[in-house]
C-alpha cells in the first residue's frame, strides 16, 4: 500500500541546457539566469507567470535562492533551495510537483547551475562538508576520486565486477554523447583506451572520472491543462521518491536509499522495471550506476556486473542508459550534474533530443544520488516519467 499520494495531472516541460564550458569567469547567477531566460523563451510563458522557483547550486554563495530571485527580478509565491547535488533533479521535480498539486504555485521553474573557476573544484572539495573537512580531506585530499575509489574497490572485491564492466558503461555513454555539441568529451572511446588509461585512484581510472565544468540545466513543472493551454510539449510524472541517509549502520556503502522506496515508486507509477524504456542514472562514478541498477530492481544485489555484460547500454541498445552521455561524457557542471538526467529524460519523452532518440520511448526512469558527506552518498531519489 502506498503512503504517498499520486502525482496525477502533473507534467514536466521545456528541457533546457546551457552549453557547458570547462572554465568560466561568469558567476553561478549568470548560468542560472541564462537557463531561466531559455525556459521563458522556449515555453513562451511570461516571466511574471512563473510563480514557483527551485534552485540548486554549489557556487551561488553568498546568495541562495532568495538573493537570486531579486538578482533575476523574480517574485514567486513558492521558493525552494535544494543543495543536494546529484539528487537535485529528482528532488526539485518532486517538490515542485507537490507545490503545483497543492495550488501553492502554478508554474515552477527548476534550475541547477554552477560556474567553474580555475580553483573552484579544490576549494569546493576542501570545504564540501564538515565531516569531509575534518576526517576525509586531510587524509590524502584525493577528492571524490578517493571516496568513490573506496566504494569501487569494495564493490569489485565483493561482487566480482571487472574493470571492463565499468568500461562498457563508459564506452556506451561516450557513444551516446557524440552528437551533444557541448560535451566535454567529443571523441569516441574504445575499450582499449578505457583500460589503457592511467589509474587516478586505484581502481578508478581516468575515464571513470567526470570533468568538472560550468553549465546549467532546467525544466518547468505545471499541470497538464496549463501545458496544453500554452501548447507546450510535456511528459507526465508517474512517481517520485526521495530517501536520505539510509543504511547508516552499513560499514561501507554497497546499497542506497532507493532499495527502501522502490516498491512504492513502481506502485505509484503502476509499472514494473521491465516496462521502463530507458534509464538516466547518476554516473559519477560508474560503480554507482551498478548500485542504481540493483537497488531500482533491474537486477538483484551483486548482479549488476552480469546485467551490464548481458545488455547493450547505448541509445539503440537493450537497456538504454544515460542517453545523452551522462556526466561521464558531457561533464559535471556542479549541481547541474544532478539535473542532466532529468532534462534528458524530458527530451526523450517529448521527442526533443539533441543526440539519439530511444525508439518508441514511452517510459523513463531518472535516478539521483548525491552528497558524499563522509564515506558514502547520502541523498537518493528516483522518478518515473511517461510520454504524453
Amino acid at each position, binding site marked *: 500500500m502506498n503512503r504517498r499520494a499520486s502525482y496525477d495531472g502533473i507534467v514536466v516541460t521545456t528541457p533546457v541546457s546551457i552549453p557547458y564550458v570547462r572554465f568560466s569567469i561568469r558567476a553561478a547567477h549568470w548560468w542560472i539566469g541564462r537557463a531561466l531566460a531559455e525556459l521563458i523563451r522556449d515555453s513562451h510563458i511570461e516571466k511574471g507567470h512563473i510563480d514557483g522557483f527551485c534552485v540548486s547550486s554549489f557556487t551561488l554563495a553568498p546568495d541562495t535562492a532568495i538573493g537570486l530571485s531579486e538578482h533575476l527580478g523574480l517574485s514567486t509565491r513558492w521558493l525552494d533551495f535544494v543543495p543536494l547535488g546529484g539528487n537535485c533533479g529528482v528532488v526539485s521535480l518532486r517538490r515542485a510537483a507537490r507545490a503545483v498539486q497543492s495550488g501553492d504555485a502554478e508554474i515552477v521553474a527548476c534550475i541547477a547551475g554552477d560556474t567553474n573557476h580555475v580553483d573552484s573544484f579544490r576549494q569546493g572539495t*576542501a570545504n564540501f562538508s564538515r565531516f569531509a573537512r*575534518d*576526517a576525509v580531506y*586531510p587524509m590524502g585530499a*584525493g577528492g571524490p576520486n578517493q571516496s568513490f575509489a*573506496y566504494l569501487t574497490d569494495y564493490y569489485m572485491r565483493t561482487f566480482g565486477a571487472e574493470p571492463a564492466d565499468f568500461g562498457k558503461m563508459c564506452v556506451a555513454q561516450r557513444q551516446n554523447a557524440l552528437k551533444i555539441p557541448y560535451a566535454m568529451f567529443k571523441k569516441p572511446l574504445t575499450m582499449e583506451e578505457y583500460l589503457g588509461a592511467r589509474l587516478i585512484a586505484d581502481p578508478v581510472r581516468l575515464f571513470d572520472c567526470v570533468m568538472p565544468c560550468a553549465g546549467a540545466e532546467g525544466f518547468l513543472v505545471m499541470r497538464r491543462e496549463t501545458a496544453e493551454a500554452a501548447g507546450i510539449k510535456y511528459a507526465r510524472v508517474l512517481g517520485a521518491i526521495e530517501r536520505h541517509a539510509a543504511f547508516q549502520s552499513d560499514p561501507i556503502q554497497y546499497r542506497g536509499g532507493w532499495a527502501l522506496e522502490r516498491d512504492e515508486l513502481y506502485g505509484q507509477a503502476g509499472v514494473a522495471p521491465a516496462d521502463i524504456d530507458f534509464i538516466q542514472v547518476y554516473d559519477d562514478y560508474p560503480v554507482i550506476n551498478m548500485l542504481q541498477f540493483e537497488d531500482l530492481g533491474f537486477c538483484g544485489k551483486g548482479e549488476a556486473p552480469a546485467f551490464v555484460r548481458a545488455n547493450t547500454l547505448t541509445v539503440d541498445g537493450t537497456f538504454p542508459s544515460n542517453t545523452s552521455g551522462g556526466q561521464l561524457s558531457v561533464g559535471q557542471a556542479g549541481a547541474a550534474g544532478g539535473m542532466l538526467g532529468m532534462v534528458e529524460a524530458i527530451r526523450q519523452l517529448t521527442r526533443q533530443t539533441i543526440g539519439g532518440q530511444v525508439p518508441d520511448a514511452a517510459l523513463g526512469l531518472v535516478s539521483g544520488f548525491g552528497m558524499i558527506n563522509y564515506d558514502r552518498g547520502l541523498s537518493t531519489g528516483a522518478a518515473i516519467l511517461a510520454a504524453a
Partner: protein
Amino acid sequence: MTPPLQKPKRKNPILRTRLPVPPPQARSRYALGLLRGAAQGRLELQECRDCGQVQYPPREMCRRCLSDRLDWKPQPEDGELISETLLRHSLELFFRERVPWRTGLVRLRGGVTVVAHIHADVPPPPARVRVRAHLDRAGQAVLVAIPERDTPNMADDKIMREMTCDPKFRKVLVTDGKTAVGQALVKALAKAGADIVWVGNAEPWKNFPGFDEIKSIPQVTLLNLDVTDQRSVREIAGEIAGRVDIVVNNAEVHRTYGISARYGTDAARAEMDVNYFGLLRLAQEFGPALKARGADGVNSAVAWVNLLSIYALANFPPHGTFSASKAAAHSLAQCLRAEMRPTGVRVINVYPGPIDDEWNQLLLPPKIAPGALANAIVNALRQGTEDVYPGDVAQDWLARWRDNPKALEVEASNP
C-alpha cells in the same frame, strides 16, 4: 614488506631545497578532540556518556540518543581494512609531492568506519589492522592503519616517516652534554641510528665525568656551545644550523629554592637565563634554518625537543623559582610550536617529574632515571608524539592537574 631505509646520499648543493607545505589544516573545533590523544600517541574517539555510543567523525551530539555529554575516550585499536585506494593524484600540494599515497576505510572494533592512511605492510583488504592516531606534518591528528603485528623496518615506511620524527639517519644537536640526562640522550640517539650527534659543552676546559665515553661514540662531535651567550649560539648555528634535523634542548639550571629560602635573585636569574632565555636564543638562531628544511626529503629537519618539567604546569614550591623558569619556557615553547607548525617541524615538549640527579637529592622516590628519560625522548621521536610526561610522578601530576588544577595547587604546597 618495507625495505630498510638507505642512508640518504649527500645533498646536491645546487638543487633547490623543497619548501615545506603543510597537509590540510582546517578542522572544526570538536574535531580537535582527536588531537589530545594523538599528541600522546593514543587513539581517543568520542563516546557518549549517556548511551555509550562511539562515533566518528566527531559530532556535537550523540548520533544515537542526541545527548551532548560526549567524552574523548581511549578506544581499541584493532579493526579491519575493508577497502582501499592508492592515490596517484591529489588536490593538495603536500600529497601531490608524495603520491602514490595509500589510504582506505577501516572498520574499528568499536563499530565505526574511519578513513585512514594505510601502512605499506598492511595486506590488501580484507585485512586485520591496528589504527593509531598520529600527528601529521601540520601537527594535526590523523589516523594511520598499521599491520596487525609489527613488521621489520615498519618505521621506514614512507607514510610513517611523514608522521614520526625518527632519528635514524638524522643529524641531532644535544645542547648540553655535561649532565647525566645529556649523556644518556647522546647514547640513546646514537643507538637509534642518528647520523651525527653534535653535543654542546659550555665549559670545554673542564672534563666532566662521562665525557670520555661520549667522545668515543663515532657519531659524536663536541661543540663549544653556551646557551647563555648569544654570540656562542650564533657562531655554532652558523656552522651547523643548516644541517641540524633535530634539536634537543636539554640545557637547564636547577636550584632548589622557593621565595623565602634565599635572599636575592641571582639563582633565579641563572635559571631563567638558561631555562628560558637559552631556549629563546637557540630558537632565534636555529629556528629559521630548521623551518626552511621541513620537507627536505627522508632526512628533513623534523623536530625540536624541549626538556621542560611537570612543574611547568603547576608550581612546586620547594623548587619554586625553577618551576617558574620552566613555566616560562613552556609558554615560549607554545609560541615556538605555533611558528614551527606550518613548516612540518614538530616541537616536542617533555615534562618529567624529578630526575634522579644531584638537584633532587632530597626528594623521595619515585624519580625518573636519566636513561629512562632519554629513552622516553627517543621513543617520542620515533612514535611522533609531541607531549611527553615520562615517569610516575609526571603522570600523577598530569592526572591531578587535568582533574582539578586548584586542588593540585594546594596539594603541591603540602607535599
